[in-house]
C-alpha cells in the first residue's frame, strides 16, 4: 500500500472524526452540564443542514453563498434550540433518564416530520463554489478541498470550547455546574439561565455542523438517525461531559472506521461497537470522563 494512499485514508478518517466531534461535542456538553440525554440532538444537526440549504438557495448565484449560509444556519438553529429549551427541555431537567430519553426521542420524531412538512421528501443538494469543486493534493494524495475547511472548523470549535471553559467566567460557571449545581445556585448564579444558554450553545454547534455537512453530500431525511448512534458511541468512548474525551473519541471512531474500510470492510461498523462495548465494560465513565459522572 502506497504511503500517499494511507495518508489519504487518514485524512478521510480525520474529517469523518471531526464531523462526528461537531455533532457529539454539543451532545456531550448538554449532558455534562444539564444531565439531559438529548436524543434529538442529531435532528437539530439535520435542521441546521436544511436551513443552510435554504439560505444557500436564496443566494445561489453568488460564490460566497455557502460561506455565508453556514454561520447563518448555525445562528438560526441555535435560535430554534433556544425556543425548544424554554418551551420543552426546561420541564424535564428533573425527570428520570429514561423519561428524558423517551421525550427527546419523541421530539426527534416530531422534528423529523416538521422537516418533511417544511422541506419535503426530496433530496437537497448544494452546488459547491468552484474553488472547492476540485481535489487538492497533499503529499501526492488526493483530498477533497472542502475537507480542509471541515478540519479547520472542527479544530476551531474544539479550541474555542476549551478556551471558553478554561479561561472565561461563564466557562468556569458551567464547569462548576457540572459538579455541584446546588453550590452554584447558592452563590446567586441563576442556574436555569445557565442551562438555557448551554443548551443553545450545544445546538449552535449542532447547527454549525449541519451547515458544514450540507455541502458534503445531499441533505436527506433520516440522516440524523444514523449519526446519532455514532455520536453516542463517541461520547461513551470519550466520556460524557469531557471535551477532550469527545475529541479523542471522535478521532478514534473516524480513523478506526476509515482504516477498517481499507483492510476489513465488513467489520468497519462492528469494530466501533466493539470498542464502545469494551469501554462500557472496562471503564464505564469513558477514556477521559470521571467516575463521578458514571
Amino acid at each position, binding site marked *: 500500500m502506497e504511503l500517499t494512499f494511507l495518508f*489519504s*485514508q487518514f485524512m478521510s478518517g480525520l474529517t469523518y472524526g471531526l464531523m462526528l466531534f461537531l455533532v457529539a461535542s454539543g451532545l456531550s456538553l448538554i449532558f455534562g452540564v444539564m444531565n439531559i440525554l438529548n436524543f434529538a440532538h442529531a435532528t437539530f444537526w439535520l435542521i441546521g443542514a436544511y436551513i443552510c440549504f435554504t439560505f444557500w438557495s436564496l443566494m445561489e448565484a453568488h460564490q460566497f453563498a455557502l460561506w455565508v449560509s453556514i454561520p447563518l444556519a448555525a445562528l438560526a438553529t441555535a435560535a430554534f434550540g433556544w425556543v425548544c429549551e424554554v418551551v420543552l427541555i426546561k420541564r424535564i431537567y428533573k425527570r428520570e433518564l429514561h423519561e428524558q430519553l423517551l421525550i427527546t426521542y419523541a421530539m426527534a420524531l416530531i422534528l423529523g416530520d416538521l422537516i418533511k412538512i417544511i422541506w419535503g421528501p426530496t433530496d437537497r443538494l448544494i452546488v459547491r463554489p468552484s474553488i472547492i469543486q476540485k481535489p487538492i493534493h497533499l503529499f501526492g494524495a488526493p483530498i*477533497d478541498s472542502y475537507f480542509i475547511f471541515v478540519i479547520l472548523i472542527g479544530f476551531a470549535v474544539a479550541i474555542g470550547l476549551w478556551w471558553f471553559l478554561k479561561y472565561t467566567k461563564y466557562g468556569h460557571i458551567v464547569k462548576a455546574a457540572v459538579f455541584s449545581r446546588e453550590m452554584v445556585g447558592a452563590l446567586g448564579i441563576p442556574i436555569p439561565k445557565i442551562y438555557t444558554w448551554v443548551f443553545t450553545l450545544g445546538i449552535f454547534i449542532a447547527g454549525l455542523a449541519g451547515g458544514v455537512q450540507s455541502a458534503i*453530500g445531499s441533505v436527506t431525511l433520516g*440522516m440524523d438517525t444514523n449519526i446519532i448512534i455514532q455520536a453516542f458511541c463517541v461520547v461513551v468512548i470519550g466520556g460524557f461531559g469531557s471535551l477532550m474525551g469527545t475529541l479523542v473519541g471522535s478521532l478514534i471512531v473516524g480513523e478506526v*472506521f476509515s482504516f477498517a474500510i481499507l483492510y476489513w470492510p465488513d467489520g468497519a461498523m462492528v469494530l466501533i461497537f466493539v470498542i464502545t462495548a469494551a469501554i462500557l465494560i472496562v471503564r464505564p465513565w469513558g477514556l477521559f470522563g470521571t467516575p463521578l459522572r458514571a
Partner: protein
Amino acid sequence: MKFRKVFIGVFVLLMAGIFCVSSIQAADPYNLGVALGFTGTGTLYSKDQMEGIQVAVDEINAKGGFLGKYPVKLFQQDTQTKPDVGVRTVKDLILRDKVRAVINDYSSAVAVAVKPICREYKVIHIAAISNSENITKINYSPYTFQVVPNSYMQAKAASYAVAQLAKKKGWKEYVTLASDYEWGRSTQEEVVTDLKKVAPFLKVKKELWPKLGETQFASFVTSIMSMKPDFVYACLASKDNVTFTEQAKPYGFFDKIPYVGSMQSVTELITEAKTMPRGLVAISRAPFFAHMDIPMMANFVKNYRAKYKGKYPSDWAVMGYDAVYALKQGVEKAGSIDNDKVKDAMKGLAVDLTRGKLQFRPIDNQLRCSSYVGIVRDDPKYPFPILAELIEIKAADSERPEAEIVAARQAEKK
C-alpha cells in the same frame, strides 16, 4: 278505482326507479391500499410512485372505475420503510379499510414481510418498485405480483453491459460497492456470479458494504482509489447513491475510475441535473424516455405533467402507474373483482402497459419487463440528462431460468 290503479302503478314504477338508481349508486368501490415508505429511506421514490398511482386511478375513475362500475378508492398508509410497521399497516388496510389489493413497498424487506399477510387474507399484493427477486422466487404466493425488473434481471442487465465494456477496454479487476441490505446484497451477488460466467477474465478485488443511509462515504472513496481497480461496480440505493456521487466527485473519482452499474433513475437524473457526472454507465428500471413511442406512455407523461406542474415522471411513477393498470386488466380478464378470480386471471396474463405489451410469468408472477442501461448525457429535449445510447435488455435475456426457480423452491422445502 281507476285512480287507485294509476296511483299504485306510479308508486311501483317510482320504487323500481329508486331501487335501480340506488343499486347503481351502491356499487361498492374497489378499495385499493397503498402501503409505501413515505418516511425513512424510501420517501423520495414512494412519493413519486404514489403520484403515478394517483394519475392511473384518476384516469380509470373518469371512465367509471374497474369494469366501468367499481370506482377505485385509494387508502394510503406509511410503512416507514420498516418491515414490522409494514406488516401492521397492511393488516390495518385489510381489516379496517377492506382493501382488495395492496401496492407495497419501496423496500424489498417490507414487501417480503407483507407477502404472507396478503396470502393469508387473500388480497392481491403488487410489488411495484421493490425488486428483490425473493419477493416472487421463493416462498411463492399466488397473490403476489411484481411489475418491476427484479434484482436478478437488473443484475443480468448490468453484467451484460459490464462484460461488453470490459472486453472493449481490457478491464481485469474491479471493486464492488453495494448497500448492506437485502436488495444491495442480492444484486451484488447476482452480478458477481454472472460476471464469472460471461466475463471470466474479471476478478473481484474487494467487496465494500456501506450501510443503508450512510452519510460519510469519504473513507470508501479514498479506499477504492488506493486499490486502483479497473472499474467499480456499484449498487447503492436511492439517497446513498446521491450521497456517494456527491462525495466522490471532489476527489476527481469519476475522472480516474469508471463507475458502472449505479442505478440512475429519472429521479436522480432530475434532482442531480446540475451535478451528476456525465459519462456514468448507469442502469435504470423504467425510464419514460425509452418508450415515448408507445401511446400509453406518451399519454401518461402528458397527464402526469399536467397534474404535477410540468414535472416529468420518474421510473417509480411509471411503475406505480403500470401496477394499477395491470390490476385493472386482471379484473377485466376475470370479469369480477373477486380476488381469487383476479389472481387466477393475472397468472400468465399479457398486459398493455407504458413499457409495451408484457406478460406475467406464470411460474412466479414476475412481469417480463426490460431493464435499461445507458450513458448519462445531456439531451436538448429535456432540462436534465438522460441515459443515452440506451440498451434495452429484454426479459428473455435477463430473467432467471425457470428450472432454477423450481430448484430454489425445492431447496426451500428441505
